[in-house]
């Protein structure tokens, strides 16, 4: 069985026993530096200080955004 998380509009599968349990674990799994991103879970903003405690449930929709060049 796999666990599905919707990340930035795309479904991503994780083996159930190795699915990330928190936002911090997800970022580590994706090799994304926590300091550069901000996140929403199901439309609710998660502050960076709360990444480690933000629990993930199967089927949730997660947005990971960061600053890029812009005018």
């Amino acid at each position: 069985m796999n666990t599905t998380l919707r990340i930035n509009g795309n479904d991503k599968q994780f083996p159930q026993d190795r699915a990330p349990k928190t936002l911090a674990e997800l970022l580590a799994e994706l090799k994304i530096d926590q300091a550069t991103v901000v996140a929403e879970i199901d439309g609710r903003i998660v502050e960076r200080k709360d990444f480690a405690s933000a629990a993930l449930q199967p089927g949730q929709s997660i947005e990971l955004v960061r600053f890029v060049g812009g005018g």
Partner: protein
Amino acid sequence: MDTLKIADREFTSRLFIGTGKYASNEIMARAIATSGTQMVTVALRRVDIENENDNLLAAIDRSKYLLLPNTSGARDAAEAVRLARLARAASGIRWIKLEVTPDPYYLLPDGTETLKAAEILVKDGFVVLPYINADPILAKRLQDVGTATVMPLAAPIGSNQGLQTRAALEIIIEQATVPVVVDAGLGLPSHAADAMEIGADAVLVNTAIAAAADPVAMAAAFKLAVEAGRIARLAGSAQRSRTASASSPLTGFLRDDKP
């Protein structure tokens, strides 16, 4: 130069810089440093989770430059408010360049949605710098709801056309009680000087510098132009007239005038 106050911040540079379209973060960092700016805009986008390596913020010294996140990509007020709140969570600051541009062809701002978003964001504690068309009435409505500036366009974003909206900009500048930042469409240092000469408090430039053959040199040119334009504004320009007004004396010519 005299200082510019926006909300609780004072700026000695009246040139704000966008960080888009640079060939590299290294060139961007050098252009920013050369421009003398104290505020740079950035955008928020989804992380590319398959290929995450670009870290823009590593190239921007936040002890020197205030970050001004924008809401680019927002097509209505709700999207702009969502982006602003994400930007605040990401940057830790409450400054936001509010832009709502539903039409990707001309990227003209939607005044109705911008006003709606501005009201929500001001109430939520944001320092709101709205990007608007050069509409003096909308500028008044925005300052009435508490925006920190108004930022009318000179011409469409990235079009490098200069002050196409001059007459309306002059009215906004005459009437505004908040700083007026001319944003978008300035393609040359002379355009920036032009905006400052008619009384803009500052200008925001991205494409004209980033897309120049030598962005660092162009940043230097814009710095000088903005300073020249500001000093000229404060100096008070001489009267324009349709006919000549001799600079040299009209007496004592080396000829004998016939009676």
